């Protein structure tokens, strides 16, 4: 069965004085997802519509937008959930990112934070490099992955979609907040890394004035996260670790 859905999309192109909204009537299958509707708007109505999409199954995080005011991955959000049969389905870009064009936002600041968070994790089990040649009877060891390649492997749950950044009220208020994704990344990186000096540096980064203490405990990040990362939990756990760290420093250990 096909549905005909009025989809109202945020539009902005470089040089416009202000954004506006366009409404298109798109035909999609009943079982379609919101991303299919966005693509139908592009394919059948306006080829100048720009949006990000890649894997279409919630593992790349590219397509994140706001659907009816709420952050979602449209590739896994059914239209039946997003459109109750009347009114318009509203599609807007994520909050708290500069908007480059239509639904595409500038994620440079976001990735600077993710890199600074230390998510340099190598899961040797996932290495695709050849195993070293060991004498038979012993367990073959993966070769050391060359520097730089490690940075491409990221922490399991987070797909770096930016939804938590959009949902966060502190991120709206101040440009400099490190943000839930980055802080959750710090928490995860500290669990994974064997480098004590790095772990301490990361903790001190979280301790900065733009770190964990700027969080206002709204918990919107955890509520909005499509991958159950629980950034708020990570932020609170980092606070606990920081109190312990500061007390130890106070008593000279």
């Amino acid at each position, binding site marked *: 069965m096909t549905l005909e859905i009025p989809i109202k999309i945020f539009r902005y192109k470089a040089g416009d004085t202000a954004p506006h909204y366009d409404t298109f009537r798109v035909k999609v299958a009943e079982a379609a997802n919101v991303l299919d509707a966005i693509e139908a708007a592009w394919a059948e109505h306006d080829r100048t519509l720009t949006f990000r999409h890649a894997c279409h199954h919630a593992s790349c995080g590219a397509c994140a937008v706001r659907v009816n005011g709420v952050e979602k991955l449209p590739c896994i959000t059914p239209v039946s959930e997003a459109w109750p049969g009347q009114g318009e389905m509203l599609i807007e870009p994520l909050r*708290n*990112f*500069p908007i480059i064009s239509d639904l595409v936002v*500038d994620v*440079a*600041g*976001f990735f*600077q*934070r993710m890199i*600074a968070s230390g998510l340099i994790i190598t899961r040797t089990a996932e290495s695709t490099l050849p195993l070293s040649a060991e004498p038979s009877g012993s367990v073959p060891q993966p070769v050391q992955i060359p520097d730089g390649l490690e940075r491409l492997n990221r922490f399991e749950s987070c797909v770096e979609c930016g939804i938590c*950044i959009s949902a966060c009220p*502190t*991120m709206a*208020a*101040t*440009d*400099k907040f*490190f*943000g839930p994704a980055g802080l959750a990344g710090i928490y995860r990186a500290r669990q994974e890394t064997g480098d004590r000096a790095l772990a301490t*540096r990361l903790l*001190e*980064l979280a*301790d*900065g*004035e*733009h*770190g964990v*203490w*700027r969080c*206002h405990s709204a918990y919107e990040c955890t509520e909005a996260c499509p991958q159950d990362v629980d950034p708020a939990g990570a932020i609170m756990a980092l606070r606990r670790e920081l*109190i312990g760290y*500061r007390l130890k420093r106070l008593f000279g250990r």
Partner: protein
Amino acid sequence: MDTSRQFDRPQAPSWGWFWQAVTGIGLIVLLALHMIAHHFVVPEGLRNFQEVQDYLRTPIIVILEVLFLAAVVPHALLGVRAILFDLGLSERAEKRVSRALTVIGALTIGYGLWLTWTITQFK
């Protein structure tokens, strides 16, 4: 979102939230005591001037009231600071706000101490 790579630099630790929490814990007790002492122990719920003067004769009472003042003023002004910092201010502006609120806090506590002293000395 800021893209200045400021996170590549070491960060100075933040103390505001910590003192907010500590004074908050203190206030749970001190505010309860303040309410009980002023409204539930007094027959009509409010003291007239003479009753206030008599009330302030006990040293422990004065100490508790001063402690209450010393907890509520920082807690309140740290809250104001948090709200102001959410205006997305520059680093310099944030320092100015912190300094201004510290001065206001000191003046407020000073005023409270002066008032307590003046009441007890009134003839």
